């Protein structure tokens, strides 16, 4: 187990190293002169102040040295700052992380509640009407893009029925309902499918027959013996998707004008504030990788065959 954790840690460092190279190259080769761009259209800079700014952003150094500096800054938690606003990306993230996390937690709760239950029902009553219903609705949910789901929900529940607020967070608690459903929809479907597949496979296992042979009730066999085995891959998936959600839900936050990290990123893309874009992306990748690591290690804890290696 110790060895496993160490190996995964090393792997993570390697992945982050690779990702940082990609991000650094992107930052470096972004077309145009970032200094000139930052001054706005038609604004000419004299040579001296141009060089001063170049020094400030280390643009005068050779590439490898810039990379070392870049990684050093990343390690110190410096994700860069906007050329135009001079605001550090970390500040922006700190302001928005609360909203993004709220949405992510709400979505993951829905995914667990609905996805897992639907998957269990479909697996236990395989080929029944309920199973067909789950299969059909998950197919549709997977086929409909998130922004369409969001727009449709807004149209029905906000514009037509006036039950829930259209956008933003001013309306209090209720304002999270539609974005959370939108954000969770595709994952609920995928979790349900994953759960159904894992559960149907486990239900065919010999140890399930043993459990019945012991005289255990169907409920205990399914909710204890089968669930405990089939939930492991599902939890892994949920963990990974939570990691992705913490990085910010670009589309949902945009559709619902939800003031989180994703919305900040989209805003930066539209204003072509590239350092913010890259900084937020770097943060997102780092969170994603770290959460994946945590999930992998907890996976090992859930499965004694791996834990006790």
């Amino acid at each position, binding site marked *: 187990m110790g060895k496993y954790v160490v190996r995964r840690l090393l792997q993570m460092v390697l992945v982050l190293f690779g990702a940082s190279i990609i991000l650094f190259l992107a930052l470096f080769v972004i*077309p145009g002169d970032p200094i000139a761009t930052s001054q706005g259209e038609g604004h000419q800079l004299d040579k001296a102040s141009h060089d001063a700014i170049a020094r400030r952003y280390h643009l005068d150094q050779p590439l490898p040295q810039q990379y070392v500096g870049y990684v050093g800054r990343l390690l110190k938690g410096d994700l860069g700052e906007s050329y135009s606003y001079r605001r550090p990306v970390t500040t922006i993230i700190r302001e928005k992380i609360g909203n993004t996390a709220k949405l992510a937690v709400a979505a993951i709760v829905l995914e667990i509640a609905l996805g897992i239950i639907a998957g269990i029902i479909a697996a236990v009553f395989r080929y029944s009407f309920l199973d067909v219903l789950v299969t059909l609705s998950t197919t549709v949910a997977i086929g409909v893009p998130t922004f369409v789901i969001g727009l449709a929900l807004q149209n029905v529940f906000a514009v037509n029925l006036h039950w829930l607020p259209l956008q933003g967070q001013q309306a209090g608690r209720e304002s999270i309902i539609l974005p959370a459903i939108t954000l969770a929809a595709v994952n609920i479907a995928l979790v349900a499918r994953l759960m159904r597949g894992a559960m149907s496979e486990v239900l065919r296992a010999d140890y399930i027959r043993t459990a019945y042979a012991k005289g255990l009730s169907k409920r205990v066999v399914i909710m204890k013996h089968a669930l405990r085995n089939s939930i492991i891959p599902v939890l892994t998936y949920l963990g990974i998707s939570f990691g992705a959600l913490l990085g910010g839900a670009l589309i949902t936050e945009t559709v619902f004008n939800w003031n989180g990290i994703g919305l900040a990123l989209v805003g930066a893309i539209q204003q072509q504030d590239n350092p913010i*874009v890259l900084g937020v992306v770097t943060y997102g990748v780092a969170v994603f990788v770290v959460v994946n690591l945590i999930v992998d290690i907890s996976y090992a804890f859930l499965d004694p065959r791996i834990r006790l290696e």
Partner: protein
Amino acid sequence: MTEVAPTQSPAPAGEITLEAGAGGFGNVENEATVLGIRQQTQFGDVRRRFFRHKLAVVGLVMVGLVFLAAIASPVIATRPPKAQDLTNTLQEPSSAHWFGTDELGRDQFSRVIYGSRIAVTVGLASIILALVIGVTLGAVSGYLGRGWDAVIMRTADVFFAFPLIIGAIVVILVMGRGVTPVVISLGIFSWATIARLLRSSILSIREAEYVEAARSLGAGKWRIVTRHVLPNSMAPVLVYAMVSVATAIVAEAALSYLGAGVQPDVPDWGNMISAGQKFFGFKDYLWFFPSMAVVFTVLGFIFVGDGLRDALDPRLR
């Protein structure tokens, strides 16, 4: 980093389905073994099973219609897609303008039809690109093994660290907006799953008897890979690729919707939805029809992919 993660970031989804033998592609290693033993001679069987699958046939028809719309856009469209008509702005759907007009008086039906061109181009081209990279690297990794394997798989890990949309945004930041950047960005952030699938598929097949036989007959490495190993390991990859086309089409629409896709004036479903949102609540046809176009296309590819999967391995039903 994006809520469409599972479809759009195949990394986790792909991986987990491998382990769970679930919804997606089943246990690839077993699948590969089964398929490997069956060999390609059973192509007829596969075709028969595919066409018996009702949803798959429906999907094929849907995909066919989208292709038709893309190829014959100028014939089907009632106006040029960029033609403005300032006397006829924001018209509700009518017999003159089936899907209505936008604030510049552009005919929405024609734009939706032309939009299929972007969808089909991006969907196919980006997945072909991903296949070229993924199959090459996956084959090298699975067949040559050792150092190659390690380097390629660690590289794949790096690409997995970027959810699809996020990775694509980085590339588009560098290359600027447009069809080509979108194709390239989606391609280079989709190859990793393909490489992994193919690699594990190859690993289980290369020990199969007929490969051993070819080897003992003195066939060269390259010949063994191209003639024996690849054809028999491609099944899970093809199923995955089919679903990935759907993923890429959604991703393209999402990127354009977010303002990071094709140029804003291009008739494109994502662009149209984004533009139509300005009139949300009173001109809903503006986002409704392009949305339905995306849904129609995506479901078509998913149905075909599901049918293909069941046809290739009926065990997984």
